[in-house]
């Protein structure tokens, strides 16, 4: 059986990739995806730990996360569409009229 540590390490790497993705990508959609990646990294960790502890709660959490992520995406895409309608692009660096 593969040690849980490998899963956790993988999830940590995925999480980091996601986090750095948020920092480095300019396309709003890709930023979304990076965030999804972070959430899914967490899910991976949850599932892995759930197996270690032999409980369901980890998996349940993962389901909740998936469901909520979907809701978030729905809202997020709506916002992106609004932004696109008004600015004709989805570059988050252009969303900077508010500052200071």
């Amino acid at each position: 059986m593969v040690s849980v540590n490998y899963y956790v390490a993988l999830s940590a790497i995925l999480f980091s990739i996601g986090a750095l993705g948020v920092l480095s990508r300019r396309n709003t959609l890709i930023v979304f995806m990076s965030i999804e990646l972070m959430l899914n990294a967490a899910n991976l960790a949850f599932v892995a730990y759930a197996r270690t502890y032999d409980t369901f709660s980890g998996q349940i959490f993962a389901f909740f996360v998936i469901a909520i992520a979907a809701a978030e995406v729905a809202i997020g895409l709506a916002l992106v569409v609004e932004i696109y309608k008004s600015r004709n692009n989805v570059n988050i660096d252009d969303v900077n009229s508010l500052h200071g």
Partner: protein
Amino acid sequence: MHLSETMNSGFYYLAPLLVFAPLVGLLINGFFGKYLSEKVVGAIASLASGTTFLVAVLLAHSTALNHGQVVQVPFAAWIHAGGLQLDWTFRVDTLSTTMMLVVSGVGTLIHIYAIGYMHEDVRFKHDEARFSRFFVFLNLFILSMMILVSGDSYLMLFVGWEGVGLCSFLLIGFWYELDLLSLPSWSNSNAAKKAFITSRIGDVGFLIAMFLTFWHFGSLQFDAAFQAAPSVAQVSPGAITAITLFMLLGVAGKSAQIPLYVWLPDAMAGPTPVSALIHAATMVTAGIYLIARSAPVYSLVPQAQYIVALVGAATALFAATIAVGQYDIKKVLAYSTISQLGFMVAAVGSGAFVAGMFHLITHAFFKALLFLSAGSVILGIERGHHTHAHHAEPKGKKKKEEHAEVFDPGDMRNMGGLRKTMPTTFWVYVVGTLALAGIVPFSGFWSKDEILLETSLHYPLIYWLLTAAAFFTAFYMGRQIWLVFFGEPRSDAAKHSQESPPVMTIPLIVLAALSLLGGALNLPFSGFHNLTHWLSSTISGVESLPFNWGVAGMSTLLAVLALVVSWFLYGRNPLKEKQIDPLKKPLGWAFTGMENKWFVDELYRAVVIGPYERLAAFLADAVDWKFWHDFVHDTLIVGGFNGLTKTLLDRNVDQRGIDAFFNSWGAFAEWLSANLRKAQNGFIRTYALATLLGVVLILGYLILK
């Protein structure tokens, strides 16, 4: 206590009237003076002062009946704080009643004189509304002086002490908008200020002396303090020396001794009755009274006494030399006053308390006489100037800019020959001069002789200094007589001068009589030592010396010699108009020094006043405003703060700023920011970066701790 019995047997219960009579007078004149005629105002004020004199007489009478016993008349509670328990209590003893009599007696005469003097003075100076104010101040002065002499504690004495200082200030600055002394603007008000501040320097000495007295003797009440003094002297003689010397500083301030005498000549800016009353007869002698009062303390420290005597003697000689070189009639008298005060201080310093007091009394008579006569002279000149100028220039004597030269009615060089136009004044002036010069049998002779005699027994140096001063005294008085009354008039004003009205001349005559006969108070022949006997119940251990022909002969000889010399110089060939003083040539630079008061004022200005003004300006402008206010507050605190917030804000907004911020976080952050820069990051990502940075820091701490 025996007090109540004694009080019943005399007029002691009247003691508070000493203060309240002038108070009533000044209140009436202060509030209603402008509705009253000049005569009424003057009468009220004189009446107030006269009442005081009457009370003083009654008190003296009671004291005499009680064989000089000290009586304290409590009036009201005063300061009760911790160990300091002082009350308003009047002290009636021989010393204080002596002073009361002198002050209120001379004071009343001067009040009467001033009715006449001020009547004209306010008209010459074009402000008749000020007449009543003058008498308010004059009554206030009598009031303060009475507190001074009747106080039963150092502190009460000090109240009067400063109170007379206030009156002095107000009266010197009476013609505050004019410049009666010299040309510079503000000179009268400057003189007033100078008088007050200089005395205040002395007052600091007095205050410190009082602190020392309180903490060493346990009380500021005279009896309690004197009782404690001998035992303290055993334990800490230094403290007593310090008390006496600090007190001397106070005396120097009030009685115009070296080094604080400089205010008195300037004080002549006040109306002449003021000069007579305050700056000759009474206030300035307060210092002598103080030392006489503190005799039990001074007697404990001979070294300090010697210093006192030395200061007095030095002042006597120094001021006398200056008097020789003065042209203003009042200034001569002012320096003469300083000199005579020096005599008194030297006397009380030498332990000759009675001699000092004696001279104080006679001096009050003849110096008041001289000043009032001088005032009469000045008014006479003013009258002459007025009648003369009335035809020449119809209006505006005061408007300086219209006159190239202001006429100075007090300048002796403008006088001459006045004995013809002002005979009464002339004769009383002569009496005063002879008394001051110390010619037998005028009062000054007896008192001065007693001082010289006492000092000759103890301190030869002091004796010689005083003798020299006595010579100069006679000389400058002779010079004055010749310059003012003899020769030909040196100005139109002098030519048209007129004698003063009786309201002025009668007090002069009274004073002249006193100057002539005042010596009878304490003739140095056995059976006649009246004053000594009288004061001995207050000042213990005073001795009455027999007459000494040697000392008396010496001083008389010198005085006569001086008068003769002055005649040679000024009487034989009277001064002409615009002629230089004949002394100038033979004395050279010395006379220049005398003329210019030995440059002491200039010295003080250079050494004390100037530096203080510069220091104050430096502290105010550079230290307080530029440093504390502008630099520390505005620049450092406010500016630094603004800079900090701006920087923080910039970094929040400005991308390069935030990069720079990260740069300082080490290699990792550098790498991070470099990559971020490469990626052309925008704001949202900056925010995310910040979040991540927080995460990294927190996790870093938790992991690496």
